[in-house]
């Protein structure tokens, strides 16, 4: 490890923190927010994040289940080779990160109801 390596590590950490804070500062507060599932950018279903329920739908690869619990939601029991989306676990609206499953072409995120 050289001095330059440590400087690079330090700057990566600083940039990561800046992006982390920046994303939270510049995201506008959504009112009347609902969860939404897209398949190939087409809306598949909307869900109320305040109501505990289990939804089922089909992705491009196979069947998937979406559980909403305590204002958080997760994908589980999905047919998928990688299972990255279910490993993300529960996501809430403060996490800002959408659930994306690439083999299924599914994105789970939130939108503002107009």
């Amino acid at each position, binding site marked *: 490890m050289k001095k330059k*390596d440590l400087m690079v590590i330090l700057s990566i950490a600083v940039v990561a923190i800046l992006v982390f804070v920046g994303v939270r500062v510049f995201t506008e507060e959504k009112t009347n927010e609902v969860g939404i599932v897209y398949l190939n950018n087409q809306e598949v279903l909307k869900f109320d994040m305040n109501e505990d329920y289990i939804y089922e739908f089909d992705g491009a690869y196979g069947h998937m289940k979406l559980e909403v619990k305590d204002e958080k939601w997760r994908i589980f029991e999905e047919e998928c080779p990688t299972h990255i989306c279910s490993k993300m676990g529960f996501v809430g609206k403060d996490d800002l*990160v959408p659930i994306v499953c690439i083999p299924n072409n599914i994105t789970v995120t939130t939108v503002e109801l107009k």
Partner: protein
Amino acid sequence: MGNSSTKKFVYVTLLAAMAISINVLESTFIPAMPFGIRFGLANIIALITIEMFGVKEMLIVNAMRVVIGSLLRGTIFGSTFWISLGGVCISSLVIIICKKLLKLPIISTSMLSAIGHSVGQVLMVSFIYTQTSMVAIIPYLLISAIPTGILTGYVSLEANKRLPRIIR
């Protein structure tokens, strides 16, 4: 001349074959972590190639890795293919800049190219799924690039010490 260029050709294809097999084996045997964080072990080969040969050869090895790797996995021209192509383009660009312009040590190059790879993939996902909110994932990927970049950088540093300088 003829002899040495054949030799070089064989070495480049061997490196490409190693990159492809590492890529396929990694995605098969090492389970994916949350947010799609991976070790990126195939990057070791890219770093070895640019050190042993140069920019052109590294681009060949990286392109072969993505195209033949996705052919083997059967995902060619699907969304996975475009996402890994986006990742590999940015990470190759970052390696060239770090190595040739900034002359950074190999561990820094490795970390920054790991970042390039994840940022390229995130940009591609944001583009394909029109999800700009994917940017929120970048801090996690940046932090995870530090240990994985040190790992791949260290391995290629040690490998380069042991490999003979074949052709310049």
